[in-house]
């Protein structure tokens, strides 16, 4: 049963909830229970061909030679697709928003960097024929030293995984090998703290394991266009990525998304469309590229494993006065979306707590593992696991109730966050209080009276100067106590925004459309990503 605590923050909103709390049926539920919801594969073609991918058996190797002649002659085989066939055989997903350098081939040409990396495509009249032909391909490799551990990968002399980033880290702003957050002076904080401890947290890569595997069907349409039925979660993203790799204008591709049979982030990497489209172009017939279950589990990108070190300096009265976080994302062999995950992680440090001294160092590291991708809050969820375990340990270390410990250290409105933004609309304290009430978890009176709003409830004890130790940490600037009415999030006034350019007049119908070449320096695709590029609208 859903319960609304409308008493909390009651003066801040209208009590006019029409949708929240009312069950609303999914628009596709009837389709689901009748088996008529259309997934990408729910289309039949009389002449459908099948694309199967030959994958690297090695984590790191140089390809010495490929002999696919027997495979090309095998029964049912229509075409072998090789690295040289791929028009643009180096890409990174976020090049669409100009974030990162192209680093990943669609088909490996000379080096394979993870077990399962695609090397060849075989298009045949049946999956069986393609698999039988695949068994006839002869590839010789020179195995190379591989690295599978994020910290090992950063040591001098570690094998270089990614040719675009030879030092095994992504480069931010073409200069920095990690994301950095600094606020106050953590070393001074640790020196002053009564208790200091550090712990290490390790996540495994997690496979989404959707019941529907990744796949797409590319179908030649009229006018040289292709219709693409796909399982993707990111329709236009996949369209633009496929257009780039195939070097065709995006208006040559008509992407039709299916109901996604389980995404969770595992169907954003545009894993199958570029090659199914290329195959359809090369053979002039519909081609399906469907991950087998083994491919999905083993080579479909997982949420990357993360290693996170958290060091806290705590006062005996329960205040955390210093927190330093060092985190390593295992991006696997290629960037994909991990560069962005690292930004999110850095943005999330130190968690929803007001800590006067904070340091964060977050690395996007390349290893010879399966390239990682998005999954359910990647970049944040693992960090939360680490931080909340750390909170429990901190509470234990000073003998404080873990919920009270969190309430004490929680953000309040007006607190300055480590990212130099003022905390607004905070509510962790109230959530903790209600959770305690529901769980019959006893909280002391002073903690039941604490409030996220400035000037209400029992204020947090100020930082007492401790002259017997290292120089006192200066208290962070505090905003003046606000009136009970909360500050609403201000939108920028129109004058602050640059004027929108008028759209160009459409060309006259008789003139042929100019070839779709992107003007130099243009923002291709989605609007600029302010958190990525550091531009701030306010």
């Amino acid at each position, binding site marked *: 049963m859903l319960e609304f605590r409308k008493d909390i923050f009651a003066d801040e909103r209208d009590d006019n909830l029409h949708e929240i709390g009312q069950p609303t049926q999914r628009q596709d539920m009837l*389709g689901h229970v*009748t088996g*008529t919801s259309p997934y990408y594969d729910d289309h*039949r073609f009389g002449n459908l061909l099948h694309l199967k991918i030959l994958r690297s058996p090695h984590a790191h190797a140089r390809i010495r030679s490929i002999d696919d002649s027997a495979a090309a002659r095998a029964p049912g085989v229509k075409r072998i697709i090789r690295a040289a066939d791929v028009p643009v055989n180096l890409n990174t997903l976020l090049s669409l928003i100009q974030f990162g350098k192209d680093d990943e081939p669609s088909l490996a040409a000379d080096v394979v960097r993870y077990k399962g990396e695609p090397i060849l495509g075989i298009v045949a009249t049946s999956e069986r024929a393609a698999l039988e032909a695949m068994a006839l391909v002869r590839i010789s490799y020179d195995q190379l030293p591989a690295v599978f551990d994020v910290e090992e990968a950063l040591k001098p002399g570690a094998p270089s995984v990614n040719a675009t980033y030879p030092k095994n880290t992504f480069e931010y702003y073409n200069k920095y090998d990690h994301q950095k957050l600094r606020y106050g002076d953590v070393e001074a904080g640790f020196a002053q703290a009564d208790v200091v401890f550090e712990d290490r947290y390790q996540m495994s890569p997690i496979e989404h394991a959707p019941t529907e595997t990744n796949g797409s069907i590319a179908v030649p349409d009229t006018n040289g266009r292709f219709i693409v039925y796909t399982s993707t979660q990111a329709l236009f993203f996949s369209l633009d990525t496929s257009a780039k790799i195939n070097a065709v204008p995006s208006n040559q591709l008509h992407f039709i998304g299916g109901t996604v049979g389980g995404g969770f982030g595992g169907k954003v990497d545009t894993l199958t469309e570029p090659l199914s489209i290329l195959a359809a172009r090369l053979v002039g017939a519909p081609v399906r590229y469907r991950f087998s279950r083994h491919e999905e589990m083993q080579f479909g990108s997982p949420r990357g494993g993360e290693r996170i070190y958290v060091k806290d300096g705590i006062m005996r009265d329960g205040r955390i006065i210093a927190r330093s976080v060092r985190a390593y994302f295992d991006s696997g062999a290629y960037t994909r979306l991990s560069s962005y995950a690292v930004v999110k992680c850095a943005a999330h440090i130190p968690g929803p707590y007001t800590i006067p001294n904070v340091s964060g160092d977050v690395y996007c590291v390349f290893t010879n593992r399966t390239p990682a991708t998005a999954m359910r809050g990647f970049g944040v969820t693992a960090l939360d696991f680490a931080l909340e375990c750390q909170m429990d340990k901190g509470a234990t270390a000073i003998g404080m109730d873990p919920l009270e410990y969190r309430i004490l250290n929680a953000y309040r409105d007006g607190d300055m966050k480590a990212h130099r933004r003022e905390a607004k609309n905070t509510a962790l304290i109230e959530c903790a209080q209600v959770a305690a009430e529901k769980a019959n978890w006893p909280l002391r009176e002073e903690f039941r009276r604490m409030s996220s709003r400035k000037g209400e409830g029992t204020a947090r004890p100020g930082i007492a100067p401790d002259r017997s130790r290292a120089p006192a940490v200066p208290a962070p600037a505090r905003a003046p106590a606000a009136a009970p009415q909360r500050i609403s999030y201000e939108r920028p006034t129109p004058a602050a925004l640059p004027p929108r350019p008028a759209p160009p007049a459409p060309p006259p119908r008789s003139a042929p459309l100019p070839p779709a070449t992107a003007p130099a320096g243009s923002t291709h695709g989605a609007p600029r990503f302010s958190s990525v590029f550091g531009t701030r609208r306010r």
Partner: protein
Amino acid sequence: MKTPIQFLLNGEEVATFVESGANLLDTLREAVGDLSVKGGCWQGTCGTCTVLVDGSPRLSCLTLAESCAGRAIETTAGLRRGPDLHPLQSAFMERFAAQCGYCTPGMLMAAKALLDKNPNPTRENVVDAISGNVCRCTGYEPIINAVLDAAGGNSRRA
């Protein structure tokens, strides 16, 4: 080599040719055109492709199509009678027992296999009946509740 095969599909006579060695899943989807049957693993580990063969739940991806000659096969496409949903379908809707919907056809057939033989199952019976079907979205509880609801309708109707 193509082999002829005839069977009943949701009460209708169906005849087609299959590649020798073809499984029932591919046959139903590609040869016969029943797209309500879904494939998730082609290994028999996920249960997504569950259909009924002579009333028993079977994994169509592991069933040799030719072995179904003359048998009565039921799939999700045959659950509703015209505009009327099967009680299991209505119950799944009411209990929000689907999100992505991909496991739903298999779940429905596994549940139907149970209710056709045991109209008043316990919760443990229901859990066992769907124990061969993987769902990655719902956490199973809404599905179990939906099947019990549909069965509860049985005892009300009895």
